[in-house]
C-alpha cells in the first residue's frame, strides 16, 4: 500500500500522465466511433448491399458483442499508454531517482514492485476507459440481444491482461535501453511493423510459431470481432479456442519478464 502511495506521489503531478489519460479518453471512443460510422454507412441504407452487410457484420457495437469489438479496436492503440510506461521508467534513469529511491531506503525489489504497480495502474486506467467506451456503445446501440449484455463480459479481464502484458514489454524496453526515444522507437517499430510482418509471413507459410511472438502471445487473447468469422470460419473458431491457452502463455511470459527485471536490478549498479 505504501508503494502505491509513493508511486501516486510521483504520478499525480506528472503532466504526461494526465495527457495520456486525456488521449486515451479521446482515442478509445474516437477510434471505435470511426469504425461505428463505417458500419453505419454500410448498413443503414435500405438497399440490398446494406442487408448483406448487416447479415455479414451483425451488430458489433451492441450488447453483448460490444465488449469484444471495442476491446479489439481499442487494443490497437496500446501504444498510447506504452509511451507513458516507457517515459515513467526512463525518467527514473534520467533524473537518477532510481538510485535515490534505493539510497533513501527502498530495497531494489521494492523499486521493481513499484514499477509493476505503475504498469498495473496504467493498464487498469486504460481498461476503465475501454469498459466505459464499450458500455457507452452498448447502451446507445440497441439490438435484439441487449438482454444478453453480460455474455461477452470476459473481454474486460482479457483486455486488462493483454494491456498489462503488452505494457510490460514496453516497460522491459525502457528498463533495458534507458533512453526514452530509443525505447519508444523500437517499441513502435516492432509493434506496428516488425511483428506484423513476421506474423504475416509465418502465417502465409503456415508456421504456427507466429503466435508465440512477444506481442502476438497476448494479441491472441482478443481475436477480431465476431464478423471476422464470416471470412474464415475455421481460423476464427481456432482463434477462439486458443484464448485459454494464450491466457497461460501471456501470464508465463509476463511473469518471466518481471522476474528478469527483478534479477537484473538486483545485480546491476545503479
Amino acid at each position, binding site marked *: 500500500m505504501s508503494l502505491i502511495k509513493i508511486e501516486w*506521489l510521483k504520478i499525480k503531478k*506528472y503532466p504526461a500522465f494526465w495527457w495520456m489519460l486525456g488521449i486515451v479518453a479521446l482515442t478509445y471512443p474516437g477510434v471505435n466511433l470511426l469504425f461505428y460510422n463505417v458500419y453505419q454507412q454500410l448498413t443503414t441504407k435500405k438497399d440490398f448491399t446494406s442487408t448483406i452487410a448487416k447479415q455479414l457484420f451483425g451488430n458489433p457495437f451492441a450488447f453483448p458483442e460490444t465488449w469484444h469489438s471495442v476491446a479489439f479496436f481499442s487494443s490497437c492503440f496500446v501504444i498510447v499508454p506504452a509511451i507513458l510506461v516507457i517515459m515513467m521508467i526512463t525518467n527514473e534513469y534520467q*533524473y537518477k531517482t532510481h*538510485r535515490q529511491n534505493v*539510497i533513501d531506503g527502498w530495497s531494489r525489489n521494492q523499486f521493481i514492485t513499484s514499477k509493476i504497480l505503475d504498469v498495473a495502474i496504467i493498464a487498469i486506467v486504460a481498461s476503465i476507459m475501454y469498459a466505459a467506451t464499450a458500455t457507452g456503445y452498448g447502451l446507445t446501440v440497441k439490438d435484439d440481444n441487449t438482454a444478453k449484455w453480460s455474455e461477452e463480459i470476459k473481454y474486460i479481464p482479457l483486455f486488462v491482461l493483454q494491456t498489462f502484458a503488452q505494457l510490460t514489454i514496453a516497460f522491459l524496453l525502457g528498463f533495458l535501453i534507458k533512453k526514452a526515444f530509443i525505447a519508444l522507437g523500437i517499441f513502435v517499430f516492432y509493434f506496428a511493423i516488425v511483428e506484423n510482418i513476421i506474423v504475416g509471413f509465418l502465417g502465409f507459410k503456415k508456421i504456427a510459431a507466429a503466435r508465440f511472438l512477444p506481442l502476438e502471445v497476448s494479441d491472441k487473447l482478443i481475436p477480431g470481432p465476431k464478423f471476422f468469422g464470416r471470412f474464415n470460419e475455421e481460423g476464427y473458431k481456432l482463434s477462439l479456442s486458443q484464448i485459454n491457452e494464450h491466457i497461460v502463455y501471456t501470464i508465463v511470459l509476463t511473469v518471466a519478464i518481471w522476474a528478469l527485471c527483478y534479477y537484473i536490478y538486483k545485480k546491476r549498479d*545503479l
Partner: protein
Amino acid sequence: MESILELSSITKSYGKIKALQNVSYQVPRGSVFGILGPNGSGKTTMLGIVLNALQSDSGNFTWFGQPGSPATRQRIGSLLETPNFYHYLSAVDNLKITQAISHRGNEADIHKALETVKLTERKHSKFSTYSLGMKQRLAIGAALLGNPEVIVFDEPTNGLDPVGILEIRELIKELASQGKTIIMASHLLDEVEKVCTHVAIMKRGTLLTAGAVDEVLANEDIVEINGNNNEGLKRLFTNYTGVTQVKQHGDHLQLFFTFGTANLEAINQHCFNNGIVLNHLLLKKKSLETKFFELTND
C-alpha cells in the same frame, strides 16, 4: 569507540580498472569523517557501495553493527554525487517522496528542512526551475530531513557560491556539535581540514591512510624559526640532533623532527648559545594539504 560504519576489504572493478582495492576502515560514532582523494580515487564508488547504489565484487560492510539493508539506509540522510529529484515536482513534493521512502520525519519536518537550506521561498517551484546551487541545497535538505543520526555528503559544496559554502560548513559544524556522525567525501582539502575530526585519504582505489585528523597529520613535528641570521641558523641546525630535514619556507626556516621529539626550549637555548636571537619560534602541525600531496604524489 563504537563504529557507525565498518568496511572490510571492499573491492570493486570496472573491467580492468580497479576502482577499489581491499578498502577497510571504521567510522566512529559522532565523528565528522572526511574522505579525501583526487578525482577517480574511489570516494564516490565507496559511498555508492555502502548506500547500495553499487555492488562490490568482494568484501562487506556494516552500518550500526548490522549488514547494510533498507532499514539501515532509512536511518541515514544521504547526498550521493548529484541532487536526484523529479524535475516536474516542487521541493515540497520531492521531499514528500523522500519522507515516504525513508520514513524520516513528517510534513512539518519537510518545511523545517527547507528552511534550514534556505529554500522556503521557492519550496513550491518545480525542481527543473532551480539553479545548480538551489538543487544542491535541496539535496542537503533531503539528507537532513527528519534529523537522521548519520549524514553522508558527497561533495556537499558543489555548485554553491562562497556564502553557500560557508553556510554548509557552519551547518556541518552545528550538526557535529549535536553528536551526529557525518561522512563527507570531498576534494576540497581546506573544507575537510576545517570541519573533520577524522580523515581517510584514498588514491586510485587504495586507502592510503585513515584515522583521527591529528594522528594522520602528526607523523612529524615541524618547527618554524626565524632570526636575524637565517643562513647562520641553517648551518646551525644541519647536524642538530633529531632534525631530519631543514627547509627554507618563505622568510622562515622549517626544521623537521620525528613526531613528538621537537623541544622548543632546547632549540631556543641552542640558538641563543650560538649567538642568534630568534624572533619567531613555532611548533606547526603539517597541513592536510601538505600531507595529502605527500601521500598522493607519485
